[in-house]
């Protein structure tokens, strides 16, 4: 995820030799989001007496937010294209129900179920995208209809009951951990040094590798930009930002390694995030989605097949909603008619907190992911503190409003 960000910041260069203040004011949004996340984490770490960053809680945090993040990736694309998808919570629930019925009632093998579910999700997205793209029906309405239809379908499919439990191999999707491939002796040695009970070497190694490659990509990009004379991020900022991100990754993976290692879901999430960050920023199809959302008519007159892109954005959303549905069902080990209820709002909120614009054409994958984490940490922290669901809702609502107000204020200030 920081891969996209280092790219992002290097990308938005204009004049070299700007003052630090000018630089900061024009990149306030990107740094602001990161700082907000850090500030909130520090705050909860203090008020929960260190519970927030305990290994078990970090693991929980990742598992709890995995499906939101997976859907936020697709939602970002949909919102950048100038649309919205209100049906993702229902679709997610429906796919969970479908998986449950297939495996529990019809004894289908897990792999068949997963493949059928993912295809079904993509088809659902395609069906909705068809009306939006080719009939020009506002996505708000199409997906509002979809939300009701798939909520109803889940109820019908489950006959109002909860269905479970799932086979062990399916649960592993959400609750499993990547086994340590290194000899136990290495982990034991490290555990000895840091006085931990155990250390999963693979997790730690993966974290260090990820952090190192981020720094490496950042350095390479910076060198390339310097060759173009378009570096404007002051050196101190570059170092500090990379140091913080790298340290955070190593810290988190270290914590994970002292518990049960890398959750399978983290791998899924990480891979998907990198793939979508690359897709949106570095490919022609991603570029065209931004053009479509930024000015549909101009995009069309530039030879871009805008209808097909809209269609694909929704199909992709359906696919990711299905993936999230599988993760969610596996995590709860049961499919309930209520699964995914109102979840679309969390997903949409994450994307907007991450800096996307309602009118389309603006927004980044990294922003959506950080936005989702920010909401996740808020949820988690407030729950640990024992704050009631009533206050939690209010605070989350205000955070969303504050993030968007900040965007608008920032934009206005830049004139």
């Amino acid at each position, binding site marked *: 995820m920081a891969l996209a960000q280092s790219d992002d910041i290097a990308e938005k260069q*204009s004049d070299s030799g700007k003052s630090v203040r000018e630089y900061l004011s024009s990149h306030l949004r990107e740094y602001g989001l990161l700082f907000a996340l850090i500030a909130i984490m520090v705050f909860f770490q203090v008020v929960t007496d260190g519970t927030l960053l305990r290994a078990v809680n970090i693991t929980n945090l990742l598992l709890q937010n995995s499906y939101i993040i997976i859907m936020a990736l697709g939602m970002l694309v949909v919102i950048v294209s100038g649309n919205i998808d209100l049906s993702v919570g229902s679709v997610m629930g429906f796919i969970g129900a479908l998986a449950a019925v297939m495996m529990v009632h019809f004894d289908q093998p897990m792999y068949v179920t997963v493949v059928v579910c993912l295809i079904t999700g993509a088809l659902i997205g395609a069906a909705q995208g068809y009306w939006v793209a080719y009939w020009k029906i506002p996505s708000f309405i199409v997906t509002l209809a979809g939300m009701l239809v798939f909520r109803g379908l889940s109820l019908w499919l489950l006959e109002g009951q909860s269905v479970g439990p799932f086979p062990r191999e399916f649960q592993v999707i959400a609750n499993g951990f990547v086994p340590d491939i290194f000899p136990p002796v290495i982990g034991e040695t490290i555990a000895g040094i840091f006085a931990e009970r155990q250390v999963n070497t693979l997790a730690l190694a993966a974290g260090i590798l990820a952090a190192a490659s981020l720094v490496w990509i950042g350095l390479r990009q910076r060198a390339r930009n310097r060759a173009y004379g378009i570096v404007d991020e002051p050196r101190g900022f570059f170092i500090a930002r990379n140091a913080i991100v790298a340290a955070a990754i190593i810290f988190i993976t270290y914590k994970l390694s002292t518990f049960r290692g890398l959750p399978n879901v983290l791998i899924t999430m990480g891979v998907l995030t990198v793939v979508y960050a690359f897709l949106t920023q*570095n490919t022609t199809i991603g*570029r065209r989605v931004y*053009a479509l959302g930024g000015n549909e008519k*101009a995009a069309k007159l530039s030879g*871009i097949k805008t209808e097909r892109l809209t269609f694909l954005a929704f199909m992709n959303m359906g696919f990711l909603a299905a993936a999230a549905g599988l993760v969610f069902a596996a995590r709860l080990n049961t499919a309930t008619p209520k699964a995914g209820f109102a979840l679309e709002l969390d997903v949409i909120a994450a994307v907007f907190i991450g800096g996307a614009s309602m009118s389309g054409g603006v927004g980044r994958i990294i922003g959506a992911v950080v936005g989702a984490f920010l909401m996740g940490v808020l949820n988690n922290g407030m729950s640990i503190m024992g704050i009631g669901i009533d206050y939690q809702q209010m605070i989350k609502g205000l955070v969303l409003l504050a993030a968007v107000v900040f965007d608008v204020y920032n934009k206005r200030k830049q004139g």
Partner: protein
Amino acid sequence: MTTLLEMREITKEFPGVRALDRVSIAVKQGEIHAICGENGAGKSTLMKVLSGVYPTGSYEGEMTFEGEPIAFRDISDSEARGIIIIHQELALVPQLSIAENIFLGNERAKRGVIDWRETNTRTEELLAKVGLKEPPTTKVDAIGVGKQQLVEIAKALSKDVKLLILDEPTAALQENDSRKLLDLMLELKAQGVTCIIISHKLGEVRYVADTVTVIRDGMTVSTLDASEGLSEDRIVRDMVGRDMTHRFPEHHRKPAEVLMEVSGWNAWHPQHAERQVIKNASFTVRRGEVVGIAGVMGSGRTELAMSIFGQSYGRNISGEVKLGGKPVDVSSVDKAIHAGISYVTEDRKSLGLVLDETIRFNTTLAHLEGVSSGGILNRNEETRVAERYRDALNIRTPSVFQKTINLSGGNQQKVVLAKWLNTAPEVLILDEPTRGIDVGAKYEIYTIINELAAEGKGVVMISSEMPELIGMCDRIYVMNEGALVGELAAGEASQEKIMSLIVNE
């Protein structure tokens, strides 16, 4: 005459750009004051400072109005003082009636209930003043741009205007509508309304202005008094900072073989299926030739171009397009681009650019294949391409990472041109390529067109400005009511001949 408005030493900066640099201007009571300058010279910025679009505090300098210092926080502040600005892009609600638009935000109402009788009678009075014969209940989207302009002025009059500012009021108007508007300005002047007009059309400026202030690069260059005689040459010289003896660059073209041939082209209106918009149009373009299409607005010129360009307009399109003697498929935009046709829109803001994105983004948009392999973008290559066009077309910007929304009209137009040149077209259809851009940028665009012709490309130029067509084209087709009604060679074309072809159809 007393001074009505004085702006002293106005300086306004945007990130990286100083748009206004100590500009001063004094407008006398009861005069028509023209502000001339190239695109990006700072004319519109100055008016935005005056009308409170840029609130007090966001600029330096002082302003006095009727002898008192003024500092506006927003437009309603300036309107309350009787300073009303009519922007290039009209601010009317198309779905509402003329009367509703005129009294929008200023409704004739008692306790929130609208008095329709008063609204409509007052509207009739105002429309009579501006010489518009339309019932007050007509929806604004049912009347043409020229009449909408008059509605805007009527709206200004309804607010007890003391200083009326018109930003490029005739940019979208036909000759006779423009004339009417200018005469109306003179009439308003006789009634004591002071006007500021921003215009590129120097003929108009000479016709109406009492005083001309010329701005260049954000600075006041000169203030000229009409009583001492206004010479266009002098104004142009002050605007561009150099002598411009020729408005059109010289060209010596030798058109070669026929490059594009359109025959029997028909198209129907997308909503009203029974209306035939293009009627059996046929024309040819040779290599190295600039072909003009003249005609009044609504004659179908844009529709002809867009229907050829991937059927972007109309339905039930029929006819044949040949390039280099072979029929080509132009049934979608990407096929048309692939065949070698480019269409540079007349409406760069809403159809040409993704305004929130950078110059680089827009330059490569129509030909991403050129800066990618296997669907993966090479952004360094992209930067190189954008910088090449920036240098070749002289796009004035600190960097290609500048958002296009921050560019002046002329520079935006160049970015749109860059986008299409980057698709390496054989035929370029340029729709009003110099609309709303200043003399200097126009000259540069003309030069680019000549270079394209010299490279052996075919250029089709659609324009409402007849002198431009006569000055630039090798042949001119005249279009009227959806049909090509005549063809004139460069030597025989004149404004009178073009007009008579339109009138005597």
